């Protein structure tokens, strides 16, 4: 919402400067976004182009002799509209041009000296117009400052209004709020009711009872008017906020829309029938609106129609066929009340953002209807002449006001600030709320018709503190009770957070960098990963982000590839984030990816990484979380993302904890340089995080007795899961077997294709005594027997 200082002063008698007004606006919740201040433009002056000639070295440039009233300057100018005797705005060397953010320097342009610049509107940041230089219409003497010549001495405010404040979509509403804060006194509206309404309107209204958005409409007919230019005072106001004057009738409606926040519409009465109908549009009906676009309508849209055609989209935009032109003689003025949500729905559907829609959907002051009618009638009659009809209307205006039971204690309870009853009442009254039935505890508050947003007692509290000032709210130090602290430490989510932190630390210390990628994936990735169709985004920003991701793999492949292309050496990344199985199930996981690139450095061979490095990383993560690998199962992974021979799944019970391995060559088809890439998915949320925090550390052995190591080689069936063998071995004799380490395997024709030979080392130690040969032999025999029996394995001699 934009308005100028002088416009505000039409409604508000104030001593405050524009800057003070700006601060007050922000303090009462009407946030000042910009306050234009053109005082620095007084350095630019009016100058006349005395003569000009073509630049010898450039077709589109002219060399002008410019007179600023003091002396003549040579200026090279590229504007197409230069002509002799023309007056423009001149900037000399050394001056800063706000629109281009450049300080002019004396110099030559294509060999010709240029001592300054003739400015366009864009160079002065007055508009986007850069078609040519400014041509002054009025005859100011050369040397007059630009602020005077361009009438820029009226600062313009731009405020960001929150959607609840429809009442401030008119300058008057803003003045009313400022007056409540004490920034000035609200003046009465400057118009007179017309006393001679001479004839019945030849056009009348009907509102269909079909559920359309109109509740009430009132009109007047203006006969024999002249629609020429509007007076300067209206034009200047419109120009000051960036609106172009068109003709008197259009300017008057635009002016009233901004001035009191009341949209209204004028039909050329000679272009419409004698009965206007508010009704729902028929499916397939079309209308050409004032923005020159054709819109296809349906029964969700309310239109103003005559016998044959829709003439306007109710509350949003008039039709171009029935609008007022310079030739309009007779006018039908419409002031109506439309349902905000229907207007919003229609506006969104048709994609029309108009000043009218913006106001209607925020809810308008119903009492402003008659005021709008009178105000507009007065201006039309005064500016365009002619005679004015009596009112014609349809529907009913609900004049009931909203009433709230308000308890004065409520303020302190919510705000934490004591505020005397008198002060509370005074503030409400300053906002023009009516206060009745005051007791020492409560009162009845009648809400003014323009405050549709004030519904419940809490809204009154807000109004009071808004005017009292948020800076007066006492600051209370935060605290945490004992129970709250307990809750924080015992909360599962907080534990989960620490788990993620531990995982991150492990990965960082293994040289994986943390990235965060979008939760989206491309259609191609979605198809390859066979993602669920419920994950499609209806209004995605691009094909690359068309689906919610079912895996992080492709995001990370893209990241690694982009970094590889930039010559980045360490291509290991990870992310903690969500994947989506379908629209109703989300899992937060850790994903890591590392790509091994050729790297020649005799002394620093950094890229030694294979499946087993990954396996070791997994066990480091598991250990960092205080779990033991013994509690897990490892199997081959069936995932289509991974190399079938170099990928694994880690389970705890039935829960999948991790999936990792070399990325499948098919997946890497589009990434030929990433053929040696390993990935891991870690489903940390599947870990029994609660028990992990309860678990006490095992008593650690600190035996000083001699230990013994012995190697065993067995022949197993080829698909024997060695992880199970390992677990069995560590469980055989928990007192004596301290460690089992697998360290070699091989296949050979001698053993047979269906078998493998595997060697492991067992460390045996007691914390009670030095073991004898016999003791050790018992353990060895036990190992050999159990391994042979359980796994159908043969000891190699």
């Amino acid at each position: 919402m934009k308005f100028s200082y002088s416009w505000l002063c039409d409604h508000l008698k104030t001593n405050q400067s524009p800057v003070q007004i700006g601060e007050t606006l922000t303090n009462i919740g009407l946030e000042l976004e910009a306050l234009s201040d053109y005082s620095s433009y007084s350095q630019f002056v009016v100058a006349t182009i005395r003569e000009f000639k073509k630049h010898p070295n450039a077709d589109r440039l002219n060399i002008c002799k410019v007179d600023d009233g003091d002396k003549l300057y040579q200026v090279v100018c590229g504007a197409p509209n230069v002509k002799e005797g023309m007056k423009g705005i001149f900037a000399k060397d050394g001056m800063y041009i706000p629109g281009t953010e450049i300080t002019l320097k004396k110099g030559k342009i294509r060999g010709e000296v240029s001592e300054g610049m003739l400015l366009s509107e864009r160079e002065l940041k007055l508009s986007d117009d850069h078609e040519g230089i400014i041509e002054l219409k009025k005859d100011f003497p050369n040397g007059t400052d630009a602020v005077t010549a361009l009438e820029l001495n009226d600062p313009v405010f731009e405020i960001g209004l929150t959607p609840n404040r429809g009442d401030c979509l008119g300058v008057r509403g803003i003045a009313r709020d400022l007056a409540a804060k004490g920034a000035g006194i609200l003046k009465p509206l400057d118009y007179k009711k017309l006393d001679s309404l001479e004839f019945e309107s030849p056009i009348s209204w009907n509102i269909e009872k079909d559920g359309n958005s109109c509740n009430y409409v009132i009109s007047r007919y203006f006969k024999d008017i002249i629609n020429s230019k509007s007076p300067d005072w209206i034009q200047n106001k419109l120009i000051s906020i960036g609106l172009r004057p068109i003709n008197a009738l259009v300017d008057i409606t635009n002016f009233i829309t901004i001035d009191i926040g009341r949209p209204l519409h004028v039909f050329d009465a000679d272009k419409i029938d004698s009965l206007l109908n508010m009704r729902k549009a028929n499916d397939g009906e079309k209308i050409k609106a004032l923005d020159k676009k054709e819109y296809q309508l349906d029964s969700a849209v309310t239109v103003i129609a005559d016998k044959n055609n829709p003439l306007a989209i109710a509350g949003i935009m008039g039709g171009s066929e029935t609008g007022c032109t310079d030739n309009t003689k007779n006018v039908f003025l419409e002031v109506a009340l439309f349902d905000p949500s229907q207007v919003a729905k229609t506006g969104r559907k048709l994609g029309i953002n108009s000043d009218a829609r913006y106001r209607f959907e925020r809810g308008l002051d119903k009492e402003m209807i008659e005021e709008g009618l009178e105000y507009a009638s007065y201006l039309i009659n005064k500016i365009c002449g002619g005679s004015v009809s009596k009112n014609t209307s349809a529907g009913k205006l609900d004049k009931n006001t909203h009433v709230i039971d308000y308890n004065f204690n409520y303020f302190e309870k919510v705000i934490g600030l004591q505020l005397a009853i008198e002060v509370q009442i005074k503030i409400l009254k300053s906002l023009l709320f009516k206060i009745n039935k005051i007791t020492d505890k409560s009162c009845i508050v009648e809400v003014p018709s323009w405050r549709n947003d004030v519904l419940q007692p809490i809204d009154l509290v807000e109004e009071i503190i808004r005017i009292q000032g948020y800076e007066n709210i006492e600051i209370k130090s935060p605290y945490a009770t004992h129970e709250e602290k307990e809750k924080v430490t015992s909360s599962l989510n907080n534990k989960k957070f620490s788990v993620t932190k531990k995982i991150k630390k492990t990965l960082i210390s293994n040289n994986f960098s943390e990235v965060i990628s979008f939760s989206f994936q491309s259609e191609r990735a979605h198809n390859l990963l066979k993602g669920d169709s419920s994950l499609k985004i209806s209004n995605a920003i691009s094909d690359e982000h068309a689906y919610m991701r079912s895996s992080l793999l492709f995001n990370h492949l893209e990241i690694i590839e982009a970094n590889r292309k930039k010559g980045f050496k360490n291509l290991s990344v990870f992310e903690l984030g969500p994947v989506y199985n379908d629209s109703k199930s989300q899992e937060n996981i850790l994903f890591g990816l590392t790509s091994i690139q050729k790297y020649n450095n005799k002394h620093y061979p950094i890229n030694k990484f294979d499946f087993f490095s990954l396996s070791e990383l997994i066990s480091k993560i598991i250990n960092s979380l205080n779990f033991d690998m013994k509690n897990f199962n490892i199997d081959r992974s069936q995932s289509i993302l991974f190399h079938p021979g170099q990928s694994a799944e880690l389970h705890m019970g039935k829960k999948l904890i991790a999936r990792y391995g070399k990325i499948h060559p098919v997946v890497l088809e589009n990434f030929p340089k990433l053929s040696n890439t390993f990935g891991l998915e870690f489903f940390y949320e599947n870990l029994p995080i609660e028990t992990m925090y309860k678990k006490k550390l095992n008593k650690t052995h600190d035996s000083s007795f001699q230990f013994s190591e012995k190697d065993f080689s067995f022949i197993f069936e080829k698909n024997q899961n060695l992880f199970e063998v390992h677990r069995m071995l560590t469980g055989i004799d928990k007192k004596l077997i301290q460690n089992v380490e697998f360290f070699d395997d091989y296949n050979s024709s001698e053993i047979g294709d269906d078998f493998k030979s595997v060697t492991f080392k067992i460390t045996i130690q007691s914390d009670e005594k030095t073991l004898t040969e016999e003791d050790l032999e018992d353990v060895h025999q036990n190992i050999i027997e159990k391994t042979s029996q359980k796994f159908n394995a043969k000891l190699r001699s």
Partner: protein
Amino acid sequence: MDNQKVLQDVTKEIELASSQEALQIVKVTYLGKKGRITELLKSLKDLSLDEKKSKGAEINLLREKVQALFEVKLKDLKTLDINSKLNTEFLDITFPPPGVSAAKVHPISKTFDDVVSIFGSMGYTIAEGPDIETDFFNFSALNIPEDHPAREMQDTFYISDRDEKGKPLVLRTHTSPVQIRTMLNQKPPIKIIAPGRTYRCDSDSTHSPMFHQVEGLFINENANMGDLKGTLIEFCKQFFEVQNLKVRFRPSYFPFTEPSAEMDIAYEIIDNKLQIGKGDKWLEILGCGMVNPVVLENCKLDTSKFQGFAFGMGLDRITMLKHSLTDIRSFFNGNLNWLAKHGFSLGEY
């Protein structure tokens, strides 16, 4: 005579021995079972007792001398050997390590961590909710009805799938739905923060289609706006590490809070660097307010008994402000050069 000769010979040979092995051979030649000195001792057996005594003493003296010579020489040779080993193992320790950057933690992670720990110390536990939300949790329960202009404050991503009521699912536009989920599941007192991913269809240097927010909610019987102010000021002081922080609360509007406020912190630019906490310009930092009774009622809470406040802030935004980062897009494009520069090492995390 013989003895002198032997001593001369052995001294010379020891001197000539250039390795421990060579020295050993010399040692055997003189002191071995058939060595010259051993032979000399053996030759004593044919002599008279007196001669045995005198000659024996001489030879033993000779033997001790020779042994001492060997020991000295052996020590020298060992030293030589170690020195030569050290010499061959001598590396060019100035060979520069490759310019591989150390892995870093993402700046957002660091912010998450700070936020969780600062609010944790004030008694806020972490709460969670899904990214794909229903219309109810993201909008209507938060007092944002359909066709209300407030919906247009946020550009919403829609999912093609629908919820049980037939409404399209949305990507949550803010973390506020977690408020609703928590209030429907827990009895007050409630004191939670909900950090997470949020989405709006918008993309430029300050807007990203995905970004992060943290939501805060404190509901009990008397949490008021003074507590809200104190909590947020304390958070900002700790997060931005500025003790004297100039802030401003000004009225605003969110459908789910009433009264609503926006918090600004003062800043100034000194030597092209953003200084937070003082100055006369203002940065919008977060939105907050007292939970609207309508929202409490939507969550089946007794509004005559319970009240409280809520706040929400952009984690990317406060990260950018704290670390003077300018383009939100660089947070999410996985540029490792950027991360190496702006990320945090393990020591800082």
